[in-house]
């Protein structure tokens, strides 16, 4: 990314992308891919599913740039699409598991599939998140991982703030109970 382009706001990059500037699209990918992929990866617990969700998110975002309103932050708009893509992937996976998988251990193996090369802390987080449903994971990761405000989370998930707070609290209790050494504060 050149210096001039790096100094541009997301809105300016979006304006260029709308005008057909291919490098502006690439810049928007470079800027936000890391946060999108980590959110999808931890939410879905599967690298391949996460990559699919993020790819579809960007393709839909760029196909729908005309619908992007500049008063909204591009990142929030992107995450709004990503949340819905992840929900679709999660729902599809649940249906597939209900149809094809009955062995509980096989389900657990699938939940962390493709994680070769992850660090211990990431494995700890994956294990602590295990057993949380998608709604609770989604709220917890947006709040704690992405440090979003509840109002912003509500706008992009369509869930009321009070419900989000409850989900975050329950998810945190779930994670704390499974995090090594967390209960003793050390």
């Amino acid at each position, binding site marked *: 990314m050149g210096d001039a382009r790096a100094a541009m706001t997301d809105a300016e990059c979006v304006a260029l992308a709308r005008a057909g500037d291919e490098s502006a699209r*690439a810049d928007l990918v470079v800027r936000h891919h*890391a946060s999108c992929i*980590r959110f999808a990866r931890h939410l879905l617990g599967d690298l391949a599913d996460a990559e699919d969700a993020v790819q579809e998110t960007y393709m839909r975002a760029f196909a729908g740039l005309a619908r992007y309103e500049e008063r909204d932050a591009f990142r929030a708009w992107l995450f709004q699409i990503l949340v819905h893509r992840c929900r679709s992937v999660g729902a599809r996976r649940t249906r597939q598991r209900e149809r094809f998988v009955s062995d509980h251990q096989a389900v657990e193996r699938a939940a962390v599939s493709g994680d070769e090369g992850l660090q211990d*802390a*990431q494995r700890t*987080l994956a294990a602590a998140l295990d057993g949380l449903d998608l709604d609770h994971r989604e709220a917890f990761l947006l709040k704690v991982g992405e440090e979003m405000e509840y109002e912003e989370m509500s706008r992009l998930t369509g869930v009321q703030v009070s419900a989000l707070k409850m989900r975050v609290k329950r998810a945190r209790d779930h994670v704390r109970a499974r995090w090594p050494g967390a209960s003793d504060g050390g």
Partner: protein
Amino acid sequence: MADRPDPERAANPHSSERAANAHSSERASAREEVVIDERVRAAYRLPSPADEPARARLLARLAADPSKRTGWRWWLAADAFRARPIWVAAAFVAVLAGGAWLGSRVTPRTANDAVAIIQSAADPTTAPVTFVLRAPGATRVSVVGDFNNWDASSTPMEHSGSGDLWVLSLRLPRGVHLYSFVLDGAEWRPDPSAPLAADDSFGGHNSVIVVDGAPGL
């Protein structure tokens, strides 16, 4: 301000002790929350070795995406003619509209050009459809859908003259179509009378209409 003696504390010292313990417990719990959040965040933000290749694959896919090409490069692209159904439908409407425009050069236009253009291109593969929306306060209402490439300017609705009703009649290719209303060029609103809705991937829903040519459609 000087501390005043707490009447409740004086009356029941055990109660105040319990309250103090509760506050202490809450503070400890809050500290634990901060600690666990920090640990989670630190682990969450570690990159995965798979992230970089995933980004490269996305950039490669975007580079090969025919929908972003403009001008002569689009026409020279080898896969430019691998049209998706939405483009076929859009092209179909465009051809019909173009033919109608030529016709309009020799015949007077009606009050609503967009409606006249599409209706005049009646075809056995299409069927008439009437969209109706009650939209109090709206000054412009359009129908957008896969049949007009989601272009709010191509199919404006007509105000009924009195009341809040907006109406548009046109012919659509038989099949299943996603659509939505656009109010004042900005607000996307699904059809409240449509029985079906599909996730639009932008946090809302599109309406779904099945055009099968049955009487009454």
